[in-house]
């Protein structure tokens, strides 16, 4: 008695729609797809399609101290953002799960608020704030700022995976004499793990791509990859920018693939984007 949607849609309009949408899908992916071939171009200039394949630009990128230190700065900021964001986001989701208390809505609002404030406003606020407390000239303020905007993502993905947790399970585990830590380890952790991983990926991705805050708080020792790209791109489109882009696209693709595998396992597309929650 399954009514498959396919048989219910007449074919002609379907084909027309697919045909019409093809340029739109191309518009979405083509720019991202050209980045890697551009980075492997053998020319000294940026061209597409590339003339031939060469790793010269990649070698050049890793030989350039300015770029490698930018890469390392990015990784450090992302490390801070992932650790803090995951701990805070997940503990917020656990602390708010299945509980009702006065002021709960305010706490949820506070947790989610960093998502909706324009980054440039946050960047300015952080810039002022960290100068006033004397915490500038290192990667730490950038990592903290990234943690602030990454936390809501972890909160949302963890909350989504907690939605499948039966509160009776927690109570029954407690009634069986399990302490708080062992309830967490045996009941909560297996349930939230996918959300936690997904949230950590988002946190990493948010941090590694964030430009505006990192730009405002940059210093000679704390210039992230996107900031370096942003500065260089205003003068010229260089192969090293292409290599850096290719690196970031690779990271994005890995993150995306992990999610796709996860979604195919779960048969649900709802969790591919926390913003859709």
């Amino acid at each position: 008695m399954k009514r498959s949607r396919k048989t219910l849609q007449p074919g002609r309009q379907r084909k027309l729609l697919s045909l019409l949408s093809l340029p739109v899908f191309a518009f979405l992916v083509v720019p991202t797809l050209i980045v890697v071939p551009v980075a492997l171009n053998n020319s000294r200039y940026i061209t597409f399609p590339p003339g031939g394949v060469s790793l010269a630009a990649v070698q050049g990128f890793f030989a350039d101290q300015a770029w490698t230190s930018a890469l390392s700065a990015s990784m450090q900021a992302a490390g801070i953002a992932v650790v803090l964001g995951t701990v805070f986001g997940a503990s917020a989701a656990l602390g708010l799960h299945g509980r009702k208390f006065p002021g709960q809505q305010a706490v949820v609002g506070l947790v989610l608020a960093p998502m909706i404030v324009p980054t440039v406003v946050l960047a300015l606020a952080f810039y002022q704030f960290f100068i006033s407390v004397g915490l500038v000239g290192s990667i730490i303020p950038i990592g903290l700022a990234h943690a602030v905007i990454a936390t809501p993502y972890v909160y949302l993905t963890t909350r989504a995976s907690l939605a499948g947790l039966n509160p009776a399970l927690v109570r029954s585990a407690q009634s069986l004499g399990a302490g708080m830590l062992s309830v967490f380890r045996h009941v909560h952790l297996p349930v939230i793990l996918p959300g936690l991983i997904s949230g950590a990926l988002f946190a990493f991705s948010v941090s590694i791509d964030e430009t505006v805050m990192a730009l405002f708080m940059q210093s000679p020792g704390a210039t992230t990859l996107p900031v370096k790209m942003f500065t260089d791109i205003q003068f010229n489109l260089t192969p090293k920018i292409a290599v850096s882009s290719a690196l970031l696209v690779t990271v994005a693709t890995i993150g995306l693939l992990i999610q796709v595998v996860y979604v195919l396992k779960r048969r649900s597309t709802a969790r591919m984007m926390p913003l859709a929650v």
Partner: protein
Amino acid sequence: MATATLERSRPRAGGPSGSAWPRRRRRGGWLLLLAPIVAFDVLFFLTPLGKLVASSFTGGAYARVLADPLVTRSLVNTLTIALTSTVVTVVLGYVIALVLWRSGTVMRVILFAVVLLPFWTGILVKNFAWAVLLQDNGLVNDFLQNIGLTDAPIGLLHNRFAVIVGMVHCLLPYAVFPIFSSLTAIDGRLALAARSLGAGEVSVFRRITLPLSTPGISAAGLLVFIISTGFFITPVVMGGPGDMMIANEIDYYARQLTDFSGAAALAVILTVLVSVIAAVYQRVLKAGGHHETL
């Protein structure tokens, strides 16, 4: 403090291990989970924002920035660029959402990945790629010359067209998801009913699908518009000097002029402007009651 509480309530070996103690310990324990996040957000989110708002009210900052013709210009730019990108994004996003909605399970996941790839990719990477494509000797210009549309490269980069292309590319995923979820909320039998009553595919779309997905369209429009008003990177990388938006002005005040209170005033103006537009928009939608068709 947290550890002290836990120490005190932990039932000691040999002591009276009543059931009341561990229960209270658990309840308190769960609330303790919220303390770090609240403290963190108060310290590193609310405090900086509060300081920003406070500093915007010093030294006549509002009068100063509003008298600056560059600010007025960037405000106008922000509104026109944001509005244009929103319209284009919602239209293209609708097409994508429609295709997603009509795809089978496997195809749907693949197309979702296609939509999410730009979402996962950083804005600089995307803008860089567009710069490569749109530059004078880029793919698009080569193509236009090859098919004989032009003889010489036309300036596709560093103008408003490029800014909108770059922004729409970034914004599309945000439009697709609200529209897609409003489409999936439509009862599939409505289309069957319409067809049994004599409607062709075009009529089904125009009279059933489109009006019933308006909540998604308006949600997408609002979300995309709000995000688009804060763009900073794209106007710099892809626009010309005349395409600077309010975010660029904030940057200019803060880092070039080191006028923090001016920059803060601009940030407050941007936030207030967006909030007011969002509120008016929702009011208008409610008053219009977007289910009045046929």
